[in-house]
């Protein structure tokens, strides 16, 4: 068997293991170990197992991942985001599907204080879904809205995906963050339009709300949004005015969230410890996958399968649009099965050289990539956001219903992607101005 063949067989074995429900991280590590053994011998294989997990983890830049996760969990447990949703609900209740729109706005606001879409979906799921169900919203529609709205969490800064991309592709993380704002807001807008259109077509999805609120109530609700606004200003302002670097922003944000929770007297010791424990569990689960994906890229490099695949993408290089279409299809397919960080680490070493040859702006592409990967979070069969919502709302809906509720948001996503490709300035305008 040639080395390249060993590489392809490795991928086949990996997919089989994952389908048989072997946890993704260990499956990646085991396959890489076996592959490197077959090509270079046992010493190198054991060496890779000894060297890579430590070196991948013991890195300053990686520290922002647990920190941004913690910031999100603290916000949820201290109820810092509740006020935001309340305000959106009161102000938007007259619109068709107003509560759903409020959930999208709430998610966009929460996105500014959390780095991952899982945290965003989990928080909004706990806040918004019960409220929508109380107003007799259609269950599939309500849960689908929140699962999709969660994806905004990784587009609007801070974003763990964008930090990792910046490290790998050598694109300034600050510029990526600025670029994500446009894509995130456009996504939110796209979802809102989709909600209005669908409720107009089928009013049964979202019965009109007969709740009347006074101007005073609405104003006081607005005042209750201060914790999130303070956090957003703190993190983005701190980055913008050079008080801290993107890596430090995670810790600064988490500390700020704890402080706000203490000032508000809404962060109990119990809530704080829950945030810590949830952060630890998520960090451990994420890092073992990232380490495995990292080892797989070495296996692909040694086997030459990576270069072989790249030459396949290279063949589409003649036309940048064709190349982008090819990349979009690859990520939509990968996104059905893979977790976004793993999919990114797996593919970037292959794609980056191709993108550079094709002279594609790596800042613009990074945002587009984050958008593709986030679509993968809500596509069947493996949609992490969907599973999160399911675990938050329990027996109210089936997983299948949530996927059904998402279908129309996927249509909105495809339109957003088309707009981002047709008008790159949606992404690039803000980073350029900020320079």
């Amino acid at each position, binding site marked *: 068997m040639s080395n390249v063949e060993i590489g392809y067989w490795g991928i086949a074995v990996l997919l089989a293991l994952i389908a*048989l429900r072997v946890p993704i991280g260990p499956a990646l590590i085991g396959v890489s170990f076996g592959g490197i053994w077959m090509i270079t011998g046992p010493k190198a294989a054991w060496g890779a197992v000894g060297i890579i997990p430590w070196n991948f983890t013991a890195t300053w830049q*990686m520290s922002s991942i647990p920190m941004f996760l913690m910031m999100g969990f603290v916000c949820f447990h201290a109820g810092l985001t509740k006020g935001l949703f309340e305000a959106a609900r009161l102000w938007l209740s007259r619109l068709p599907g107003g509560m759903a729109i409020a959930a999208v706005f709430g998610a966009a606001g929460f996105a500014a204080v959390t780095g991952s879409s899982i945290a965003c979906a989990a928080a909004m799921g706990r806040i918004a879904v019960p409220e929508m169900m109380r107003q007799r919203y259609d269950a599939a529609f309500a849960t689908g809205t929140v699962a999709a709205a969660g994806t905004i969490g990784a587009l609007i800064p801070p974003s763990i995906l964008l930090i990792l991309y910046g490290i790998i592709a050598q694109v300034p993380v600050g510029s990526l963050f600025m670029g994500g704002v446009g894509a995130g807001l456009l996504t939110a807008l796209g979802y809102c339009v989709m909600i209005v259109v669908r409720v107009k077509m089928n009013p049964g999805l979202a019965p009109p709300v007969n709740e009347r609120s006074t101007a005073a109530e609405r104003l006081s609700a607005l005042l209750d949004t201060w914790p999130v606004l303070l956090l957003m200003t703190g993190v983005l302002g701190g980055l913008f005015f050079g008080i801290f670097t993107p890596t430090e922003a995670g810790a600064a944000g988490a500390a700020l969230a704890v402080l706000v929770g203490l000032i508000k007297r809404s962060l109990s010791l119990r809530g704080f410890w829950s945030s810590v424990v949830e952060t630890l569990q998520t960090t451990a689960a994420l890092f073992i996958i990232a380490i495995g994906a990292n080892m797989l890229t070495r296996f692909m490099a040694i086997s030459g399968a990576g270069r072989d695949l790249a030459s396949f993408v290279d063949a589409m290089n003649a036309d940048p649009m064709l190349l982008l279409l090819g990349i979009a299809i690859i990520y939509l397919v990968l996104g059905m099965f893979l977790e976004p960080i793993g999919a990114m680490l797996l593919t970037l070493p292959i794609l980056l050289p191709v993108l550079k040859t094709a002279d594609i702006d790596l800042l613009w592409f990074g945002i587009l990539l984050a958008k593709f990967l986030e679509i993968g979070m809500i596509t069947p069969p493996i949609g992490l956001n969907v599973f999160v919502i399911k675990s938050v709302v329990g027996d109210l809906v089936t997983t299948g219903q949530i996927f059904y509720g998402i279908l129309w948001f996927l249509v909105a996503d495809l339109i957003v992607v088309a707009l981002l490709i047709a008008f790159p300035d949606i992404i690039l305008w803000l980073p350029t101005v900020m320079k």
Partner: protein
Amino acid sequence: MGLTFRLLGRVIDLTTLVAGLALVLMMTHIAIDVVAKYIFQVPMPGTITVVSNYYMILVAFLPLAFAERRNGQISVEVVTAALPMRTQRGLNVAGMVFCLLVFSALAWQGWIEAGRAQQVGSFEIEQNTKLLTWPARYLLPLGCGLIALTLVAKIWVALTRRPPQSLDEPFF
């Protein structure tokens, strides 16, 4: 067996507590460094070294066993969900054996690397002082070894408990 499980459970609780403290310390340390740099123009010495060599390893590897106990590892269930329950249980045990092998390998090789680092006495220099980094190397095999033990316990329970319990709930 009950005593062994309780003991393992307490060890996992303890390591989770240590990892939690490391997480909180990491946040505090970086935040203080930011403030010190901005207001007093004096950085806290050794922030980058301590964060990357100590806190990160504690936070990423020590809670592995805790996550495993809660079935917190990310895997894909859609393909197997349609299979008969007997087959699902069999696959689940086989998957845990696979994980056990992988984490044992990580623990074993991590231990050897830690020994090597101790032998050369790995360190970093911060403000003209030596900051030893080799002790942190032992945290990785510790975390991976603990999840390996947890997997042994889970496999044992999966094979012996009657009636067999649901795959979704934690085994112990």
